[in-house]
């Protein structure tokens, strides 16, 4: 029995010395970024940015990632409105009203939500620049 305990002790010691336990969950990685060169318009970068960072949830039909309280009349994967579905042209007003910094009364929570892909400072700058210039399509 003494030998058995010695073996167990040896194995535990060896495990501590040589065992490797490590997981790369991507949790520490920087968020994906859409870099826009030139004047930001929907066609020049903003469309790609909004589709990447906003339309993963705000799309019609809903994606698998859209939480249950996602508005059913907002489709940020396109710029223009269609019938009773609003497109991304509304975003400029919301950004000017500060939706990237705070919840807007009666409209929405601060966006993006905390478990969405965060906006980088360059992306926020591009969105604000686009909004202040009237959120142009082209």
């Amino acid at each position: 029995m003494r030998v058995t305990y010695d073996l167990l002790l040896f194995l535990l010691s060896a495990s501590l010395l040589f065992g490797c336990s490590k997981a790369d969950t991507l949790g520490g990685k920087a968020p994906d970024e859409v870099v826009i060169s030139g004047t930001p318009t929907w066609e020049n970068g903003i469309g790609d940015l909004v589709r990447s960072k906003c339309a993963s949830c705000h799309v019609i039909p809903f994606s698998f990632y859209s939480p249950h309280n996602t508005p059913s009349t907002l489709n940020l994967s396109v710029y223009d409105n269609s019938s009773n579905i609003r497109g991304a042209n509304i975003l400029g007003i919301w950004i000017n009203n500060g939706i990237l910094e705070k919840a807007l009364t009666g409209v929405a929570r601060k966006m993006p939500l905390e478990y969405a892909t965060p906006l980088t400072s360059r992306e926020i700058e591009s969105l604000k620049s686009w909004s202040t210039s009237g959120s142009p399509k082209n």
Partner: protein
Amino acid sequence: MGREVVGELTGLRLVKSFLCFQIALFFILLWPFTSSAVTAIEQSRRLQLVYSHLLDFRSNAAPIYETSGTLEVSVDLQPMPDIDARIGAKTEPVETLPVSGRLRLRGFLFDGWMLGISSVPGLTIGKQKATALQTEMGLRKTWGSIQTGLRVSQSLWEILGQMTTTRYKDRLENRQQNIDFSLGLDWSFWQPYAGIGRGILNSEFWIEESQITLKIENHVYSYQFVGLGLRENTWSFNFEQHRTEDFLLHFQLSATQKF
């Protein structure tokens, strides 16, 4: 005198075992972890995969040929790696224990055939309740000191509890099928071995707060492992180091009583 000779042989075996073991481990650790900028969806999927792989039941034994009628009862322990549970700007409040475990029973039939069952029977740990069942079938063959093992297994897991928030209860359900092959050496009471495996994962993660189900369907993955078994009379102890896909290293320990 006799004890001295045995001691020298044992020392030699020890050195040989660890050389073999360290070389195998070295190659496993050579594969780098790589990733670039990510989206929250990619982070969410990766986290689900990591947890699923950590739940995966592996062989956790050298592929030693056992005679017909042998029964093994084992306790497996798995230290959990540090997990960065950040998704987007949010860190998921999942709290895992530093060690997880299971009970395992294996019976050896004729000509090296093996049947096994493992279980985690509705264990409530912290804020989560885990239930698991695995069945496995294997075939082991021996050529002198060379041992080989082929194993197929199926695992079912359900974990209920607080994972994405402390205000709601989420549910993770996993189904995994594995096949792996291992090759080992039986040097008296030392059994170094290594193996490769493939698995298919189906996972559903129900998030109560958002009322969405994150699904991973028919995800095929590969894993490699090296291990060292130590055997003394009816007891054996095992260390198995795993590498799963290109993002997870973890190891398992087991203590087995043979009847």
